[in-house]
């Protein structure tokens, strides 16, 4: 094989793999904290990508209306559930996070959405529109069934995925979108040409992973999330609310999804339903990493990216089949492995 092609494929795979790594990490995080197998992760990727692409052309994306709608729904559910037992201060805080925040974001979007807005502005607006959807979604769909089985949570996630895909079509239409690169810089390393977008992907991935590490190791809330993942009962006993850690995990997952979307939309055309397959590839990595190990998932993600790159070069028609079948040996190995204990399921 031509070594240049080899290098090119590895580089291409590493770029995609970096995205899968981010998504895989978010999936592991959400599963560890809430036991939800977070299928709608991919929809956040598509929402992020399309929201950013529309903002880049100066248009106001439909996500801007989804945000207050979901905030309001979450607020209503919260009030119906336990409004009568809440203090005035608690209600005020709740209203601020569920209604005040979306109103501010809507205002900012209309004020700032313009063809001439900088890429950074658009990135920040996109994150501000998508990230709060995570906690709202958790409040609406998952918190009411938080104590049920993994299978019920999983089926709920599938329902959310269906609804979000349909909403994606309503908001963004059936046409795919692509945005300009975040930067036009280029860099040559030997025979390889790295585009600014490649570099942005690597830098952003490393920065996000480092940021997550600092968050989990150093901050009280990061520790609280880890504690919930390690021992749910223990976390409740020290006063960490399940809804708090669930919302936090979903917020991080939504932010990571949106960031991944922003990173890929300059490289490939994204459609309203593209996220699903991208998210599932993050899953392949997470399954190889056993839905538990963060470094394992990141490494597996790079592997998935590289396999995909080679598959699309040598057998492009069977690319998806090859990538998804990667988990078969892992599943076989697991089924032959140690005794599985599903008593608590």
């Amino acid at each position: 094989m031509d070594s240049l092609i080899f290098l090119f494929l590895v580089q291409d795979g590493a770029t995609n793999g970096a995205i899968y790594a981010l998504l895989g990490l978010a999936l592991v995080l959400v599963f560890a904290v809430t036991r939800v197998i977070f299928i709608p992760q991919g929809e956040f990727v598509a929402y992020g990508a399309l929201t950013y692409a529309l903002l880049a052309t100066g248009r106001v994306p439909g996500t801007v209306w989804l945000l207050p709608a979901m905030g309001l729904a979450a607020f209503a559910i919260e009030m119906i559930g336990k409004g009568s037992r809440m203090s005035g201060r608690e209600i005020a805080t709740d209203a601020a996070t569920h209604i005040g925040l979306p109103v501010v974001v809507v205002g900012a979007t209309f004020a700032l959405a313009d063809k001439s807005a900088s890429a950074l502005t658009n990135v920040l607006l996109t994150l501000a529109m998508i990230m709060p959807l995570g906690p709202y979604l958790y409040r609406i769909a998952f918190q009411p069934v938080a104590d049920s089985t993994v299978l019920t949570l999983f089926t709920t996630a599938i329902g959310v995925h269906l609804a979000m895909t349909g909403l994606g079509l309503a908001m963004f239409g059936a046409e795919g979108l692509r945005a300009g690169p975040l930067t036009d810089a280029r860099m040559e390393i030997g025979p390889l040409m790295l585009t600014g977008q490649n570099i942005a992907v690597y830098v952003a991935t490393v920065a996000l992973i480092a940021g997550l590490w600092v968050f989990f190791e150093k901050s009280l809330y990061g520790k609280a999330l880890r504690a919930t993942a390690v021992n749910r009962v223990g976390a409740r006993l020290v006063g960490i609310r399940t809804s708090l850690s669930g919302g936090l995990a979903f917020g991080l997952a939504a932010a990571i999804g949106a960031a991944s979307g922003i990173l890929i939309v300059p490289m490939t055309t994204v459609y309203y339903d593209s996220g699903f397959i991208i998210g599932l590839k993050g899953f392949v990595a997470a399954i190889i990493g056993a839905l538990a190990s963060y470094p394992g998932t990141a490494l597996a993600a790079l592997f998935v990216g590289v396999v995909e790159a080679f598959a699309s070069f040598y057998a492009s028609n069977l690319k998806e089949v090859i990538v998804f079948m990667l988990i078969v040996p892992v599943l076989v190995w697991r089924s032959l492995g140690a005794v599985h204990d599903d008593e608590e399921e």
Partner: protein
Amino acid sequence: MNARLALPLAILVAAAIPVLPGIPPFWITLLNNIGLAALVALGLVLLTGVGGLTSFGQAAFCGFAAYTSALLTTRYGLSPWLTLPVSLLVTGIAALVLGVITVRLSGHYLPLGTIAWGISIYYLFGQIEMLGRHDGLSGIAPLNFFGVSLREPATIYYAIWFAVFAASICTIFLLDSRIGRAMRSLRGGRVAAESFGINTARLKLIAFVYAAVLAGLSGWLYVHYQRTVNPTPFGLHVGIEYLFMAVLGGAGYVWGAVTGAALVTLLKDILQRVSPMLVGNFTQIDTIVFGVLLVLTLQFAPRGVWAFLRNLAPQARPRTIAAAEPLRRRAPATQGDAPLLGVTGLRKQFGGLVAVNDVSFHLKAGEIVALIGPNGAGKSTTFNLISGVARPTSGSVRFAGHDLSNASAQECAKLGMARTFQHVKLLPEMSVLENVALGAHLRGHAGLFASMFRLDRADEARLLAEAARQIERVGLTEHMHKPAGSLALGQQRIVEIARALCLDPRLLLLDEPAAGLRHFEKQNLAKLLDGLRQEGMSVLLVEHDMGFVMGLTDHIVVLDFGTKIAEGKPEAIRENPAVLQAYLGSAA
């Protein structure tokens, strides 16, 4: 109305629909679609609702059968009736292969695995030249029934709904049988089922293949109804829709499948006709509605719509237990004077922690031996090592002349060890009778096909008669037809003992049988165990309650911190200083 008449009446109504005057043709088309979907959803009832295994990949199985039949009829000109068994066989083999890989996986890996192959198989259908790639195959022959062509919706209707009713009835028969009972026990956890010799991995595989074959039947009917085939109806989203039908209709009930299929198909039709008026040319509103409905169903009606509807339908009366030839008893062990159970140097380490430290003791036939000690002394672990639930680090267990050191719970059950659990492991919604009959699983013989086609009645009657006999033996006859979960805790413990007796055991293993019992319940339990001993039964029990043990047992083994600190007759144990020390603690 009599419950027995409901089903024939429903079949009659179904048969009359196409010939009724004034029925619009598209009603028939809708009913055909409902029937096709109901077949797939019915498989999910057995797989998900009964067996607790979730699959999003059922649409792919429809595809296997559909493409097999399409290929064989168009390319080789075979009759569809000949391709039916071939299609089902191909689907079954595909399911067997996928099932062997995925079914043994715990909880969430199975649905994830089904998503992975659901997508892969869909892409594969679209890539294979012989299957016409994305365009698929067309010009497929319609079904022909003794010269009558089933080309029209109103004629194939009969084939589809015959399949739906036949499959539903077979599934109802299956669930009401030895195999079905075992399948229903899958949801209650692996440990209890395997303690009665049920091979859970094999049963899960059977449920998986059964569900796939039903999906295959639907695919075969579909392809000869549409007479063209392409990959679209076999994609993952269709697979998700089938699961949605099962959940919405009620995954725990056979008729939940038909209910769910009808609701979703009708809803989809209505949405497709109504949505252009409401929201312009926006075609995917059904996706949003389905997604939201699925979430709401799980929150507010997790048991599905049929759970409400069935209350309107007439209820079947509890069956009467017919007299039946008794089951064959186990031959008495012939082993001379050797003890029935011999435990030697048994040891279990978890990492650095020694939970059981070289414990040895034995039990003679016809004895009641108790294993006592403070909380955390390693009694339950010892118990699990003996009964095959956990494997020892070293040491041996000999039982009735066999070495059981590394035996599984199933093997222990086969040799005549029957146990109860410290935390009661009954299936709360199943009747006491059926829970107890589960204990006799190994003594029955009826298999899958005998059960589906009701050829198992003699065998089944003997099992139920045995269960009823054991329930009578422990004095719970009046509660026989109640759901096990409705009994008081003390009675549930007794039900577990009846279930264990159904195994025709040589040795009863009882894990804290007196915990949570009232005083008179304890006395009754002691009386029951004493009576069993007089009939020759051997009993090993783990117990915390000293008073209960002292009056009842022949021999006591005391554990503390995983080590045997004393053994002997109750009177001697009571005076033993090491035992007093362990129970009172030195902080005293």
